[in-house]
Every structure is written in structure tokens, then in C-alpha cells.
């Protein structure tokens, strides 16, 4: 059971959160301008690294805020937590 530091509520059990997949995949500004291949890339392609990964979480059972986490997918170590819309901190 990971302990995820909600930027608002502080550390809470993983069970209080919903996972939201890879962070920083913006909804395209003008989907109609994209080719089918470009749109498919937005819909279906995500990174799957072993190691640090910037991903979105929502504190579903708490303050209901979405935020970003850099988590090591191999060890579950959380390197950084930052608010939605924020820049991913530099390394790791």
C-alpha cells in the first residue's frame, strides 16, 4: 500500500486515489486538424518506462484534486509530486 503525498491533504493510502495514466499528454488544441494517425497516437500511445514516470493521480476519496507524481515504476518510489498544470521537476 503506497503512501501517496497529496499536495493538499498530505500522505494518504494509495486506496484513496484513482490512477490517471501518463501525465503531460494534453488534449489536442484542434483535434479536427489532426490526421487519423496523429489522432490515434494521442488516443492510444503512452510511454511505459521501467523507472521514473510522470503520471496523474486524483485524490478521489479526499479533496478530489488531480495532481502529478513522478513515480519509479520498478520500486514505487515517489520522486516528486506537483500540481496539475505544473512542470515536471528536473530529474530523475
Amino acid at each position, binding site marked *: 500500500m503506497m503512501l501517496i503525498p497529496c499536495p493538499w491533504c*498530505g500522505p494518504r493510502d494509495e486506496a484513496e486515489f484513482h490512477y490517471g495514466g501518463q501525465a503531460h499528454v494534453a488534449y489536442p488544441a484542434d483535434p479536427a486538424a489532426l490526421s487519423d494517425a496523429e489522432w490515434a497516437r494521442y488516443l492510444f500511445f503512452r510511454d511505459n518506462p521501467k523507472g521514473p514516470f510522470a503520471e496523474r493521480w486524483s485524490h478521489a476519496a479526499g479533496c478530489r484534486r488531480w495532481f502529478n507524481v513522478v513515480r519509479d515504476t520498478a520500486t514505487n518510489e515517489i520522486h516528486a509530486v506537483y500540481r496539475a498544470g505544473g512542470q515536471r521537476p528536473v530529474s530523475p
Partner: protein
Amino acid sequence: MMGERPSPPARFEPVADGDLRIAEVSFLTQVNLRLDPGDPAAGDIGRALGVPLPTEPGTYGSADVDVLWLGPDEWLIVGEPGRERDLETRLRTAAGTGHVAVTDVSAQRTTLLVAGPKARDLLAHGCALDLHPRVFGPGRCAQTMLARAQVLLVARDGDEFLVLVRPSFAGYLVAWLLDAAAEHLSGQPG
């Protein structure tokens, strides 16, 4: 033919043991408030309520109502029964033209009182939060899980907790609480 209010959602025989009390506190006024705490309206609303909107997560302030922090732009105002109209009007007037959402949610949650020296032990059967008085003492509140129900937990003076829960879950949660409470009642095996 405005009928009598029906019986409270949870409807159970209250527990009044030496070390543990469990009861339902029905029909409290609850108004949900959303706004950016940086909006000038926030100050006006705080003055109208008699207590500033708390901005420290997981805390609440009290005047003739309690103002509970739910999120960075969300509060729950809790008052005595029957004050929905009064509070809504007060909040809307104070909000002026600001971007503020005021929603009467009085029937959206019912309230259980869990109190006494064994209250923390009882809640710890189903709540993953650290309820130690140093961590979750009077003045703290938290949205979290109790057993398998989402709750808003409020710590008050004197080992007293309010558990605000959706009425649809109240029957489940009370059955769970009573089952977990059995060992904490006098004369029962520990």
C-alpha cells in the same frame, strides 16, 4: 400537507456506554461552497460567516456554524437544522458577483456522532488515517474512507467525532460500527 420529516436515514438504537457513544445527529444544515480562496469574495464570505474560510487543508473554523475545508476551493458549512435558506442567502449576498457556487446539500449527508475514550479505537478498525490526538485532534477534519464508505470525519473537543456520510451508506456504516463497537462496550470480551 407538509408532512413530518421522516425518521433519520441511519435509524438505530443509540449506543451510550461508559467509554463509547454512537448516535445519529439528523438534519443538520449543510451548504457546499466553492470559490477561489484568492477571490475578494472569500473575505466577504468569511465576514458574513463570522469566521474566515480555513485555507489550511484538513482544518475547520467555527462561529455559529462550522466551516470545514474540503478542498483548496471547496468548503462545507455546517449549522443547526433548518438554516439552509438563511445560510444560502447570507453566502450569495456576500459573494456578490464573484464566481462562487453555493449549493444546499443538507440532505446529501447524515451525521453520526462517535464519542468517548474508545472512539478512536473504534474508528481505527476501519479508518486508515492516523487518529492519534497529536495528529488528528480537535479542529481537524478529513475526507477519507471508514470501512468501505466515504466519509467526512470531524474531530471535536473531548474525544468526540462527527462522521458525515451519504444517507444511502448510513445503514451499512451503522451496522459496521455497531459490529466493530461490540468489543469496546463494557461487559463484552475484548
